[in-house]
């Protein structure tokens, strides 16, 4: 797994740090920094959580991981107004 971070999109919410302390930290202004570009498999769940909660979505996972994270959020098909 490879994680990328676009620091200029970060809004310093700190959520990635709470979700995956071994992978993310913050600089003096609260902007996220990557401690580990290639976190091991034992950190996969934490990193997935970080991606899911990141407000500004600057955390970019490898394609496979992104797909897994999106599925967990549970996108719903669009339907007509009375689709239940």
């Amino acid at each position, binding site marked *: 797994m490879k994680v990328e971070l676009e620091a200029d999109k970060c809004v*310093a919410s*700190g*959520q990635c740090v709470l979700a995956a302390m071994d992978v993310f930290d*913050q600089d003096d202004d609260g902007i996220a920094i990557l401690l580990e570009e290639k976190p091991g498999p034992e950190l996969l769940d934490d990193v997935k959580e970080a991606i*899911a909660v990141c*407000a500004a979505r600057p955390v970019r996972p490898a394609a496979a991981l992104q797909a897994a994270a999106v599925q967990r*959020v549970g996108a*719903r098909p669009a*339907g007509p*107004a009375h689709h239940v």
Partner: protein
Amino acid sequence: MADTLAGPVPEATDTVPEFPMSREARCPFDPPPALKDLQAEAPLTKVRLWDGSEPWLVTRYTEQRAILGDARVSADIDTPGYPNKAASGGGKLSFIMMDDPEHARLRRMATAPFAIKRVEAMRPTVQKIVDDLIDDLLAGPGPVDLVDAFALPIPSLVICELLGVPYDDHAMFQDNTKTMVRTTSTTEERNAATRVIGGYLGGLIGQRLAEPQDDLLSSIAGRVAAGELTHGQATEMALLLLFAGHETTANMIALGTLALLQNPDQLALLRETDDPKVVASAVEELLRYLNIAHEGKRRAVTEDIEIAGQVLKAGDGVILVNEIANRDPEVFADPDKLDITRDARRHVAFGFGIHQCLGQPLARMELQVVYGTLYKRIPTLKLACALEDVKFKHDAFIYGVHGLPVTW
């Protein structure tokens, strides 16, 4: 038609439901039933506001996150189509009502003290504040109003310390904040309240320009000195931080305590644990369940957005109510149940996207200290009136209780 077999067809009328809707008196913790019905019907629907305008209401979690994360919506109340909360508007409040890049430029001037490590460094101070207030409670006779004696002082003391505002002036900013969040305040009342706190904070920033100290007001004043902010912009930013820093967390403390008292099994789990993870999980679940920022986040569409089979047109207004997104059954199983053991971390109680709450690390830490301490130190804590007699803030942009009589 297949559609008629799939379920009841909504009545063929052109009546657009009025927003906001009322909660049911018997379920003060639950969203208005009419909102849940709209959610079950569709992810997006039109509603009618006080001024006759008809913005979109986004009812479901996935669509709310998508729109809040979309750069084609504006949080600026002057953007055409912005759904105004009340005739009195509420005025602009610094970067919470700005768009990028100016939003980002200003927000980044205030992020440093809210970094996780800086917030963690404040934890012992917050613990001491909480312990001292509980000592005071226990020293006096019950019943007391938990809002005045506990819920409001804690976040007020903390944000004062962080900003560098003298706590002795708390009655002034707390009272004026109440006027600002009351839905029924007139334009004059709201403007007057804003002017009083603004004038006060503007004065403090002037002092910090002359004599900088080690606090957030001084670093904001430093931006004025550097020509990056006008004195007026600095004052507005300080006002946003002071206002958002105390009113929100105070409501979470009081309303959260009431919700736990009504769910004794959940309260017992919290009281009996020594595991900070259980406490942290309870904080997330109570944020998800209570949704105190219940007036809905408001946006205006600046370029057409296609979503869930609809087109939101440039100039349309959008309202995103977290109280139903956080009760979306597709995302949270059995959503109306308070269950502090569930993983609720993905809630949108702090919003989503570029405006996601700046103070969330601080709010989380304060709530962890409070929920992790109060019920252990006062295990017999109980409501000193009937639930029907508790006055809920149906008349405020931020939900909670006006008072909470408790005894032990």
